[in-house]
C-alpha cells in the first residue's frame, strides 16, 4: 500500500506500508518510526480509502528490498563447543577480575570503613566501574548501592562490614570454581553479575503448581525501576521470586495483585532456594481467592530459616520470612513487630509503618516480608483469616 503526502518540503513524501509486516517506509526525514505519514496512510486504509494508481520508484525499490531480506531464523542452532569456550573465556576473565576486587577490599580494610564516608561520588563511581570492567558487574552494582548506605542510619557500618565480607567470600569461592556444584556456581554467578544465558534458561527446571502471590513491591534504585513479586506454591510451600526491571523510559510488567492465584508452570532459575523464577507463558489467573497466608512461623524460627538459606547461599541481601501472630511493637523507640513470645524484629526504614498500623490496628496478624542481613524487616503483605492485604 502506498501514497504521497504533501509535507513542508518541496516534494511530496513517498510513503509505503507493507501490511504483512507490518512495516513502513517513507521518504520524509523524520527520525520517528513509523512516521506520521505512514500512520496517516494506515488510518486512511482503516477508514476504507480506495487504493489506486502506480507506485513510484521509491516504493518499488523498497518492495524489492523487502523480498530479498532473509526471513528471521526460526531457531538458532547453538554450537555446544562454542558455548563452552565462551564460558571458559568468561571464567578466566572473572578470575582475573577477582584480583581487582581483592585489591580494592584490602585497600578499604586498611584505610578503614570509617574513611568511606569521606569518599566523594567520583570515587564510588570509579570503584563501581572498575568492577564492571573487571567482568564483575554484579559487584559493581552492589558497590554503587553501598555509596547510598554509607553514613545513613544507625547500622550502616554493620551493612558495609557484611557486604565487604560477602565480596571477600566471593573472591575466595571463585578460586574454587572447579569444586563447586551447579547450584553453588549459579548462586555465585548471580552475585558477580554473570547472568544465565537463554540456552541455560531454556534447559531450566519448570515447576507446575498453584502459585499464591504473597508480596509485590516496586523500588527505584538509581535510574532502574525494579519489581519484586513473591510467590508461594500452595501444595509444596515452595517460594519463588519474580524480578522485573525497567530502565529509564521503560515500563514494568503489570504487578500481580497480592492475594491472587496463578496456575501453571514457572521457570526456576538455577541456584539454591528460594529461587528466582520467571512466569511461564501458559500461566493463568486462578478463579478462587488465594486464601490465607500459609507456612507462617514464630519470629525466631523464621529468622533461623532465613539464616539457613544464607548458610547455603550467602549473597542475597534479603530473604523472605513469613511471621505468625505478630503485632506492632517498639524496640527502643523504633518501629518493630513482635510475636507472643516477645521476640521482635525491627522494621526497615523503607517500610510504610503508617499503612501497617492502619491495616492491622495493632492487632495480631500474619506477615509476609523480607528480612535483610542486619535483621530489618520490610513487610509486604498482611494475612488474616481467609485472606491477605498487600502493603
Amino acid at each position, binding site marked *: 500500500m502506498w501514497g504521497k503526502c504533501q509535507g513542508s518540503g518541496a516534494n511530496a513524501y513517498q510513503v509505503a506500508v507493507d501490511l504483512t509486516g507490518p512495516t513502513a517506509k517513507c521518504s520524509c526525514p523524520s527520525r520517528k518510526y513509523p512516521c506520521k505519514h505512514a500512520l496517516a496512510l494506515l488510518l486512511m486504509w482503516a477508514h476504507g480509502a480506495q487504493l489506486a494508481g502506480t507506485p513510484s520508484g521509491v516504493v518499488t525499490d523498497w518492495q524489492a528490498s523487502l523480498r530479498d531480506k532473509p526471513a528471521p531464523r526460526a531457531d538458532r542452532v547453538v554450537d555446544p563447543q562454542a558455548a563452552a569456550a565462551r564460558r571458559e573465556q568468561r571464567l578466566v576473565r572473572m578470575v582475573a577480575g577477582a584480583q581487582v576486587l581483592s585489591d580494592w577490599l*584490602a585497600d*578499604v*580494610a*586498611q*584505610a*578503614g*570503613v*570509617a574513611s568511606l564516608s569521606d569518599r566523594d561520588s567520583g570515587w564510588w563511581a570509579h570503584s563501581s566501574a572498575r568492577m564492571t570492567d573487571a567482568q564483575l558487574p554484579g559487584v559493581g552494582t552492589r558497590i554503587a548501592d553501598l555509596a547510598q548506605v554509607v553514613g545513613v542510619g544507625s547500622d550502616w*557500618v*554493620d551493612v558495609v*562490614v*557484611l557486604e*565487604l*565480607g*560477602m565480596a*571477600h*567470600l566471593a573472591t*575466595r569461592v571463585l578460586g574454587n570454581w572447579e569444586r563447586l556444584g551447579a547450584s553453588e556456581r549459579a548462586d555465585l554467578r548471580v552475585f558477580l553479575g554473570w547472568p544465565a544465558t537463554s540456552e541455560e534458561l531454556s534447559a531450566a527446571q519448570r515447576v507446575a503448581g498453584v502459585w499464591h502471590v504473597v508480596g509485590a513491591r516496586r523500588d527505584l534504585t538509581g535510574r532502574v525501576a525494579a519489581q519484586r513479586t513473591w510467590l508461594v506454591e500452595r501444595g509444596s510451600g515452595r517460594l519463588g521470586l519474580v524480578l522485573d526491571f525497567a530502565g529509564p523510559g521503560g515500563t514494568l510488567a503489570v504487578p500481580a495483585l497480592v492475594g491472587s492465584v496463578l496456575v501453571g508452570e514457572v521457570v526456576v532459575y538455577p541456584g539454591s532456594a528460594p529461587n528466582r523464577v520467571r512466569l511461564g507463558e501458559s500461566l493463568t489467573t486462578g478463579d478462587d481467592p488465594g486464601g490465607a497466608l500459609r507456612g507462617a512461623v514464630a*519470629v525466631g524460627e523464621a*529468622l533461623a530459616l*532465613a*539464616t539457613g538459606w*544464607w*548458610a547455603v547461599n550467602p549473597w542475597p541481601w534479603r*530473604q523472605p520470612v513469613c511471621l505468625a501472630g505478630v*503485632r*506492632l*511493637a*517498639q*524496640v527502643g523507640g523504633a518501629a*518493630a*513487630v*513482635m510475636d*507472643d513470645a*516477645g521476640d*521482635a*524484629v*525491627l522494621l526497615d526504614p523503607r517500610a510504610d509503618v*503508617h*499503612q501497617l498500623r*492502619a*491495616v*492491622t*490496628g*495493632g*492487632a*495480631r*496478624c500474619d506477615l509476609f516480608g523480607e*528480612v*535483610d*542481613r*542486619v*535483621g*530489618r524487616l520490610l513487610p509486604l503483605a*498482611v494475612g*488474616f*483469616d481467609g*485472606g491477605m*492485604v*498487600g502493603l
Partner: protein
Amino acid sequence: MTTDRVEVPPAEPGAQWAGLRAALLLGTTRRPAPTGIAVGAVLVAGSASSLLDAAALWAAGRGPVSVAGVAVPPCPPDPTPVVSATAVAVLDLVLPAGDQPGSVRLVSRWLARAATAGQRLPHSRVVALLELGTARPGLRAGVRAVLGERGRWVAGGHEPWAWATGRDESPAWDEQAWEHGSAQERMRMFAALRAADPERARQVLAGAWPSLSAAERSALLAGMRHGFGPADWDWVGQVRQASNSAQVRVLATDMLASDPASPYSNELTAQLRAWTSRRGAQIGFEPDRDLTEADCVAAGMGKPPPGLSATGWWLSHAAAAAPLSLWLELPDSRRLPRARVGVAELVAAGNDELRDGWVRAAVRQRDQVWLEALAGHAPTPAVLAALPPDRAVGVLVAHLRGKDDPQGDLALAGAISGRWQRNLASVLIDRFAAAQTHPEGDGSVWLEHLDPADGDLLRAAIEGLPEDPPKKVAGAVAARRRQLRAAARDLAMAAAIDAAFTDPDNQAPPASPAIQHPDSPASPAPTVEEP
C-alpha cells in the same frame, strides 16, 4: 596472608562481632587489628586480609537474631460500618487525580456522602486520606468525619496528622502547652479558649503579647475575630495604636472597622459627617485639608494602591466602617424638606470609591436593602455571596440579560453558594458555550454548583459547539469544549458517587473477618479488611 589457627576460648557472638566491626571501622593502617578476636575458626592476625576472612565467615555463617520488643497498645474496636466495595472502587477512581481541581470536589462529595450514610473508610484507605487532608486543609473536616476509630488511632501516631485525631476540636487549656507548644498547637488552643471563654482568651493574649513575634501576633489576633465584641474594643484599639507591625495594625483596624459601633468606626463616622454633604442623590466629599498617604497609614488603612488617590482610599475605608444609615441621614443641601432619597438612587449616583466602601459596609452590616441596591447596580462576587441565594440568582439573571460579554460570568455566579437553580445554570452554560474567547478559570466552578441532573445542559451545549469553527477562534472553542467535557465527566463521576451510597445493592457489607486479639479475647477484636 597469615591466618593463625589457634584454639581460643570462644567469645560471646555479640562481642566477636563488635570486635570485628570496630577493627574494620578503623582500618589496619591506623591501628593494627587486635589479635584477640576469634570468629569461628579464624583468629584475626592483625592483617587486613584476616579481618576480611573473619567478615566473610561471619557473612556466611550468621544471620540476624530477634530482639526484645514492647507491644504497642492496639486500636479499640470500631462499631461504625465500613462503606461498600462499590464506594471504595469509586473513591479509588477519584483519588489518584487528587491534584486536579475537579477531583478535590469529587473527593469532598464522596466524603460528605459517606458521612451522611454514617459509614467510615476502609482501613486500607485511611493513610491515603490522611495524607490528602494534610495537603489540603479544606478537606480535613470531611476526612475527619469518616476516619472511624482506626483512622483516628493511626493519625495519633504521626504529628502532621494531629488535625485528624479529634483532639484539636477543643483542646483543654494547658499553661505548659501554651508556653512551650508549637505555633500550630498554640493557635489551636487559643481558638478553643476563645470559643469557650472569650474574656479569658483576650487576657491571655494581652499577657503574652510582649513576648510574641509579629507573625504570631497577627495569627493569634486573627483568632480573636471569633466572638469579637465591645469588650475587646479597648485592647484591640491599643494594639492598633501601639503596634510596630503594619500587618498587625491593618488587621486590628479591620476588626474594629467591621463593627460600625466601635470607637474607631465612630471616629471615622464623625469625620465623614463633617466632611460630606448631599445634594439630591449626589454625595459630596470635602475634607478640610488635603488627605495624604500618611493620613491613610495613620488611620490603619495601609497605603493607597498605585493609581488611587489618598482621598479616594480614605473615603472608601471610612464608608466601609460607617453605619449605612449615615448616608440617608445627611440633610439635602437643596433644603427641600419633602424630598427623601432612596438607597438605589444613592448607589447609582455614587462614585467608585464610595460604592467600594458601601459594598464592604453592606456585607459587614448584612443590610439587605443596601445589598440588593448595590447588586442591582453592578453585582460583585462579595455582594452576591452576602445575599440569600434565591435573591442573588434573580439579580444575576437580570444582570446577565443586559450584558453581552460573558467575561466574568462565572466569577459572579461562583460567589452564589450551593447548587445553581436550573434557569441560571442554563443561561451560564449557553453563554459559556457561545463565547469565542479563551475560557477564564479552570472549570472547577461547574462541579461545585451543578447537579448530576444538569448533565443534559452540558451535553446539549457540547453538541451545539461548532464542528469546524473559523481558524481564528478554533483554539478558544477547543478549550471551551475541553472544559465542558471535563465538567460533564466530573458530573457523571458525581452521579456514580451518589449512586454508591444510595443504591440498595451497594449497602455496607456485614462486619469483616476478625483477627483475634491476644489481650482481649472476650472483647470484639480489631479487624483487617479486604481492600
